[in-house]
C-alpha cells in the first residue's frame, strides 16, 4: 500500500518538482505513471524508497511514514521494494551474476541457491548466457534487463520501474511487461513510470498522469488484453533472443 498525502518536493536550487500530490495505491494494484519529460515521475518514485525526502506532505508505504523511518531502518524498507532505475545503476566492478544476486547474498542465501535463483531470473529477461559478463560489456538493452532482473530477484512486495523499456525493442518490451503482470498476479504492487501510452491502453489499470509536478489524471483504464497477447506474436516469432549456449 502506497499513500501520498499532499506531497511536495523542491530541490535545493529552489526548483519545485512535485506539488501537492495525493493518491493511494492498494496492495496488489498495477499502476502506470506517465507524463512528459521532466514532469516529476522519477522524483515521485525516489520518494517511495526514500532516495530523497519530501519537502512537504506525508508518504506512507505499507502503513509506515517513510520520512519517519530511522536511518538505520531504511535498508529494510528498501529490501521490500524492487526498483528498476531509469539510469540502470549497475555496479561496474561486479559481474551480472553478482549484481543480480547482491541482495540475496547479504540476506544470507547460500551460493548455490543464489546462483540458481539468479539464473532463473536472468533467464526470464533473456540474459542467462551473460551471467559472468561485466556491465560495460553489455549492450544498453542488456544492461536494462540486468537491472530488471535485480529488481525482481527478491520477489519484492512493491515493484517500482522507471522507464524500464526505454532501451528495449517492442518485442522484448512486451515480454517484460508480461513478466510484470505475472509478478503482479502473485501479489506484488507494481508502479510503472513510462512514456508509452500504448502500454496503458493495452494493459489497462490505474493511470496516474503528472504535468509539471502536479497529478492531473488519476483514473482506471480498461485494457484490451488481446493487444498484449497478439502484439509480440505479430512481429517476432521468439521475442526473447535465445542464449547463445555458454551457460554457467
Amino acid at each position: 500500500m502506497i499513500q501520498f498525502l499532499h506531497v511536495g518536493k523542491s530541490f535545493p536550487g529552489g526548483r519545485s518538482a512535485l506539488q501537492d500530490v495525493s493518491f493511494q495505491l492498494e496492495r496488489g494494484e498495477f499502476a502506470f505513471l506517465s507524463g512528459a519529460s521532466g514532469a516529476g515521475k522519477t522524483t515521485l518514485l525516489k520518494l517511495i524508497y526514500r532516495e530523497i525526502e519530501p519537502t512537504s506532505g506525508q508518504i506512507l508505504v505499507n502503513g509506515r511514514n517513510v520520512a519517519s523511518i530511522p536511518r538505520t531502518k531504511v535498508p529494510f524498507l528498501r529490501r521490500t521494494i524492487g526498483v528498476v532505475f531509469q539510469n540502470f545503476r549497475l555496479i561496474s566492478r561486479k559481474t551480472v551474476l553478482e549484481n543480480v544476486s547482491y541482495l540475496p547474498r547479504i540476506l544470507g542465501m547460500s551460493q548455490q541457491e543464489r546462483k540458481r535463483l539468479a539464473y532463473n531470473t536472468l533467464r526470464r529477461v533473456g540474459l542467462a548466457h551473460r551471467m559472468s559478463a561485466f556491465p560495460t560489456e553489455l549492450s544498453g538493452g542488456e544492461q536494462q534487463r540486468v537491472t530488471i532482473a535485480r529488481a525482481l530477484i527478491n520477489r519484492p512486495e512493491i515493484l517500482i520501474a522507471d522507464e524500464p523499456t526505454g532501451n528495449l525493442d517492442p518485442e522484448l518490451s512486451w515480454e517484460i511487461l508480461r513478466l510484470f503482470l505475472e509478478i503482479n498476479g502473485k501479489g506484488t504492487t507494481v508502479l510503472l513510470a513510462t512514456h508509452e501510452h500504448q502500454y496503458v491502453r493495452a494493459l489497462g489499470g490505474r493511470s496516474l498522469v503528472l504535468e509539471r509536478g502536479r497529478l492531473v489524471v488519476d483514473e482506471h483504464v480498461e485494457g484490451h488484453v488481446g493487444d498484449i497477447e497478439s502484439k509480440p506474436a505479430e512481429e517476432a516469432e521468439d521475442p526473447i533472443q535465445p542464449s547463445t549456449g555458454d551457460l554457467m
Partner: protein
Amino acid sequence: MLARILGYFFSEAAVSLRRSWKVSLVAIVIIAMSLFIGGTFLLLTSNLTRVVENWRGDARIVVYLTADKVAREDSQVLQLASEPPWVTAVEEISATEARSRFEATFPSVRELFKDWKEEPLPPSLEIAFEAEGADDGQLDEWLVSLRAHPSVVMVDDDRDWLRQLEALIAILTGLGAVIGLVLLTAAIFTIASVIRLTAYLYRDEIEVMRLVGATELYIRGPFYVEGVVQGLLGGLLAIAALYGGYVVLNPKASTTFLGNVLVDRFLSPEALVFLLVIGSVAGLLGAVLSLRREELGQ
C-alpha cells in the same frame, strides 16, 4: 552468523582488491612509504637511545687522592667509597695509569709530560653506581663525607654531566616523538586521503548498494577489511624496504662512529609488529574516516 558476515567481508574485499589492484597498489605503496619513513626514524632513534643508555651506565664518580697518601688511609677511603648500597664497583687508578690514560685520550699533548719527573696526575678511585638506587640527598651527603676525608683532593661528580646528558636524551626523545607523531599523523592522513579518494571513486557503487537495501555494516565491512589488508601489506612492504636499506647501509655505516651509532642493530620484533599494527590501524582508520562522511541520501 558472524562467521558468515566476516566471510562476506573478506571475500568481497578480496574480489575488490583483485579487480581494482591498480588503485589498491597505490594505497598500499603510500602506506608502505609512510611506514618506511616512520620506521627509519624508529631505527635511528632506537639505536641512539641504546647508545645513550650505555653512556648512562658508564657514568662515574671520580675521587682524586693526594699523591702522598698512605695505604691505610687509602683503604679507609676505599671503604667509604664502597659503603653505599647503590655503588656497584670501585676501581683504583694509580697515578701512572692516570697519565697513560690521559696520553691515550690526548695523544697530541703527550710530549708535554715527557720531561716531568713527578707524575702529573694524582691517583684516583672511579666509582660506578646506580643512579636510580640513591636519592639525591643521600648521595650528596655521601659526597660531602668523601670530600671531607683528608686524603681526598677533589671529587669529580659525573652526575652534573649525566644530568645534562639526560636533558639531552629527553630532548632527543621528545623530538623523536614529535617527529614520529607528525610523520604518523601524516601517514594516517595520507592513507585516509587515498582511501577517501578510493571511496569517492566508488561512491556510485556504494550508493547503489544502499539503494538496493544493504545496511551500513555490509557496505562498510568490506572496505574496512580492505583498509586493514592494505595497511598490513603496506607494513610488510615497508619492513622489507627497511631491511633492504639496513643491509645495504650497515657495512658502510659501521666504519664511522655516527653511522655505527645510527644503524647498528635492526628493529626489534616488537617494533616490527608495531609497524604492522600501525599500518593496519591506519588502513582501518582511513576507511572509517573516508566512509564517515558518506551519508545517506547524498
